[in-house]
């Protein structure tokens, strides 16, 4: 056990920092700063994606041969951390982190050649069509049906909560191709063009007043069988592969620390009720310190995962924990932030937080994002496998209950 940090990594960190300093414009940083969700402003995310693509840094978690960076797990974490610190807009994950890896794992050569470069360059913007009105946590019960018709499928059904479907030109879907088989055995993974006739997209407005999600209706949509990833009725395997790919890939601690730093900043500027700044209030500070200590524990759990990954071990159980802990902590951070801004959390000013809006607003600028973030962050324990589902997975697979 050697808990010191290797010097090569310090050098790499410097390289990343100087790249970010040179390439991140104020306009781009504003998008990162004002973001109130994991999904950042599309226009600026895509602009930043183009810059990263040119540098070859757009898909750190892809194998090098497909356009990845060849970085190890520590380098990837450093890049993510520094990007966050510099308020870089986050990449939109559906193509780069979700669909791309599925195509890499299960696509044909032709599919890889066609789709992967378009994901990297941002030419295609993907959305994820898994959930349905009747199928959330129990995803395998999904009903959207793809009937075989020669070289095509005819797709009918409804997808819901589809993030960014209104921006996307492509959607990857799980559809049912066999109604008789056991639920998991009759599912197929399909890539569908959003401009296909018969697709209708309707908005869902979130708690924070912002449109991120949509309902997507499929009415006799014709999809070439060539767009299928993996075999017919084998879509569940592809979907599970994606979960494996995602696992251990994400670190929460850096974003949590960044959020906490903002809370401290707010609390040192806001007045406390009984004299001095809010940060001098013992009750407030206790919550702040307890939260910081809990984040510290997660930081080191994530370090342990990186170390295990780095030496070729499967972090298994530890990785499935971080989703639960990271999201629950992010809710505590955003909760403390609304407590810190107090009454300034109340003005409804959705328009003013849009990057580049330049609109007048009520209250200090640091208070602008607190409430929308608090509202939006409630979703983190619901999506990506709800935290109850995650606890169920740990109970079953790790604890053997």
């Amino acid at each position, binding site marked *: *056990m*050697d*808990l*010191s*940090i290797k010097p090569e990594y310090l050098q790499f960190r410097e390289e990343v920092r100087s790249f970010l300093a040179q390439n991140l414009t104020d306009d781009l940083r504003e998008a990162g700063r004002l973001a109130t969700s994991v999904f950042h402003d599309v226009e600026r995310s895509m602009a930043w994606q183009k810059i990263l693509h040119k540098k070859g840094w757009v898909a750190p978690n892809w194998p090098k041969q497909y356009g990845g960076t060849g970085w190890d797990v520590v380098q990837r974490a450093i890049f993510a951390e520094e990007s966050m610190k510099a308020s870089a807009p986050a990449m939109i994950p559906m193509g780069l982190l979700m669909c791309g890896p599925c195509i890499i794992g299960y696509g044909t050569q032709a599919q890889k050649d066609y789709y992967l470069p378009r994901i990297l360059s941002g030419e295609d913007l993907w959305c994820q069509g898994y959930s349905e009105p009747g199928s959330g946590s129990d995803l395998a019960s999904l009903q959207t049906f793809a009937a075989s018709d020669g070289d095509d499928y005819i797709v009918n059904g409804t997808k819901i909560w589809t993030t960014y479907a209104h921006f996307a030109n492509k959607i990857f879907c799980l559809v049912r191709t066999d109604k008789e088989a056991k639920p998991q055995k009759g599912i197929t993974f399909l890539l569908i063009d959003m401009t296909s006739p018969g697709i209708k997209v309707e908005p869902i407005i979130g708690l924070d007043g912002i449109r991120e999600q949509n309902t997507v209706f499929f009415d006799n949509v014709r999809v070439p069988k060539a767009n299928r990833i993996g075999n017919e009725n084998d879509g569940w395997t592809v979907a599970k592969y994606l979960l494996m790919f995602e696992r251990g890939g994400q670190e929460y601690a850096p974003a949590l620390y960044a959020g906490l730093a903002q809370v401290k900043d707010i609390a040192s500027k806001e007045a406390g009720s009984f004299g001095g700044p809010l940060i001098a209030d013992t009750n407030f*500070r*206790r919550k702040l*310190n*307890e939260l*910081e*200590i*809990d984040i*510290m*524990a*997660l*930081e*080191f*759990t994530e*370090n*342990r995962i*990186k*170390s*295990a990954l*780095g*030496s070729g071990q499967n972090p298994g*159980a*530890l990785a499935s*924990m971080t989703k*639960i*802990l990271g999201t629950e902590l992010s809710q505590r951070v955003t909760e403390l932030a609304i407590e810190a801004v107090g009454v300034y959390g109340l003005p409804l000013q959705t328009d003013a937080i849009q990057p580049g809006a330049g609109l007048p607003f009520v209250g200090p600028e640091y208070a602008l994002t607190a409430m929308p973030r608090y509202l939006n962050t409630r979703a983190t324990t619901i999506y990506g496998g709800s935290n*109850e589902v995650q*606890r*169920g997975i*740990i*109970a079953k697979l*790790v*604890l*053997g*209950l």
Partner: protein
Amino acid sequence: MNFDLSQEQKMLVDSIQKFLKNDYSFETRCKLANSSLGFSEENWKLFAELGWLGVALGSDYGGFGGSTEDIMLMHEALGRALVTEPILPTALLCGRLIELLGTEAQKKSLLPSLIQGELQLALAYNEAIARNNPAVVGCVAQREGDNYVISGKKIGVLNGHAASQLLVTARTAGDVRASAGISVFLVDAYAAGVERKPYQTVDGLRAAEIEFNGVEVTAAQRLGAEGDAFVALETVLDEACLALCAEAVGAMEVLYKTTIEYCKTRKQFGVPIGKFQALQFRMVDMFMLHEQAKSMIYQAALRAKDISTKEGRAKAREAISACKVYIGKAGRRIGQEAIQLHGGMGMTDELNVGHYFKRLTAIDALFGNVDYHLHRYDECVTASREIA
């Protein structure tokens, strides 16, 4: 960062685990805890032979010169079996304090015999008015010619019943709450005026209340410069605190795993109670708390590396306080949940669950509880904010 154990660390942990598995069953532990001494002298000799008493101490005196990680790993392993032998009070608190403060002669006369298992020591620092704060010392050492006369009362002295020599903090100058003016003396536990009231603790260990009624010591029995012991004192308390946290993590591991095993076998309503989701989620939380607690001792071990340097000390204090806060809360929660999930069986003296629960409860009270360390953590981060 690499969390894999080195070859040497593997050997250390393996040898501890092997011994505990073969010779330290729960029944044996209970017998030892209830014996007159509260631990086994035979084991103590064996620990010395295996080198465990010297892990934290310098190689000049026969020690192993181990790193913070080594000490952490060792105590985590010991915690799994609730070992009662007083390694922490003797080797970590006293051995390290002698190493940090003592003259060459003092070190030579004490450390080798400690490491060889011939010496039991105890550190008498805590007082009723101090509530674990080592800077608060009401006990005084009055200079009289070449000698000092010590008067005052110490509480919760770990291993105070068995120690033949005591390290005592006493004020040679300054106000009761001043960190300057504290000196440490080596006092014969049988000297005239030393009155010990040993007692058994709820977690099966031993401690003592010790009164010093005008106990005379020579200047040669003082460790380090007069009035200048505080930094060393706090350093060893912090090092021991980290070891104690590691011990707690070992105990937590056994407790949550035992609970899972029980819930897989105990049947009610025709199914193992572990099939109830309400219980499953609570066990998942116990599992996660243990993993996070483990991460926390690693955090502290990393950041406490340079605890003996002036710059390193601030960072170490902050890290160790954060660790103790987390361990205190996690230990409380895992302990309480373990009992609840065992139902009536959890309430019995017969099952090991209650004993682990009591040890974790005691650990929170030692070297400052959650509130104490939250307060100290706050001081540390406030100070570093002001510097920045």
